């Protein structure tokens, strides 16, 4: 028994009384268990094949177990990471769409308000022209005063709408965490609504013009949301006419 077997070779499941003496070559055979099976015969004539097979199975099982464990842990880690990215991407998409949709809705409402301001502006021009006609001067002057007040009221309402939308936009820039993603994420809108518009000049300084977009071209705003933990981002572009007469919705900024 002193020459017996390394633990791989020993038949651990056998009761000690039933263990048969192993040849000295058996220990060697199992020591390099994954290698060739030693089928040499012991001087007693007994084959070592079974002993080596037992060791072979055990020696094979342990590395397989360890490998499977590593594989499983690696796969879980990789999948968790991929899923965190997907969750963050989904959250950024929602935040970007919220901002772009809010901007688009604001432009739509502003375009409607602009129609009123534009109408009063034209009416004031007409009234002031009528004031030059003899006989119609007084009536035109009275009408012009009413129109001026209406123009100022509509313009003030537009300003209020603008400021309200700009404040709401600022509060939406921090992309709120979702149920699946808690990492830090933020959005940027370029240009910011507070500095994106200007009032058009009119022929008379007391008549207020419509609000139009400052930047020329079809791009009214670019929304860019990005996560800080993972390198993922979402970009959207709000398109339309700078005079806000025609809006073309928002598209993926990364698609040419």
């Amino acid at each position, binding site marked *: 028994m002193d020459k017996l077997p390394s633990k791989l070779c020993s038949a651990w*499941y056998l*009761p000690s009384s039933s263990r048969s003496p192993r040849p000295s070559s058996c220990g060697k055979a199992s020591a390099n268990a994954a290698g060739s099976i030693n089928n040499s015969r012991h001087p007693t004539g007994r084959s070592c094949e079974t*002993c080596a097979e*037992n060791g072979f*199975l055990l020696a094979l*099982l342990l590395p397989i177990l360890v490998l*499977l464990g590593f594989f499983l842990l690696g796969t879980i880690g990789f999948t968790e990471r991929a899923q965190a990215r997907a969750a963050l991407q989904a959250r950024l998409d*929602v935040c970007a*769409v919220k901002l772009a949709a809010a901007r688009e809705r604001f432009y739509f409402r502003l375009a409607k308000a602009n129609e009123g301001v534009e109408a009063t502006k034209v009416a004031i021009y007409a009234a002031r022209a009528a004031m030059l006609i003899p006989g119609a001067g007084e009536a035109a002057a009275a009408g012009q005063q009413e129109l001026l007040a209406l123009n100022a009221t509509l313009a003030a309402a537009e300003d209020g709408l603008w400021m309200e939308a700009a404040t709401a936009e600022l509060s939406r820039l921090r992309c709120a965490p979702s*149920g699946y993603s808690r990492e830090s994420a933020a959005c940027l809108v370029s240009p910011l609504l507070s500095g994106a518009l200007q009032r058009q000049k009119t022929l008379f300084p007391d008549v207020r013009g419509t609000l139009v977009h400052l930047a020329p071209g079809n791009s009214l705003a670019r929304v860019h949301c990005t996560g800080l933990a993972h390198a993922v981002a979402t970009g959207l572009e709000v398109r339309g006419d700078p005079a806000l007469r025609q809006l073309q919705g928002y598209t993926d900024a990364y698609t040419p």
Partner: protein
Amino acid sequence: MPTRHEKGGILLELFIATFILVTFTAGAARIHAAFRSRFERIVQERNEAIRAIRR
């Protein structure tokens, strides 16, 4: 020829190996299903949120 006890030992080892492999496969399948379902929920909630915003 292996003795009766040795045969039993081999069978036991084979059983343990099979048990481990089956348990591993079943566990991996369950983990995969859980991840898949979570991923589908993420995408579904994203689509619903975007649809609600656009409405």
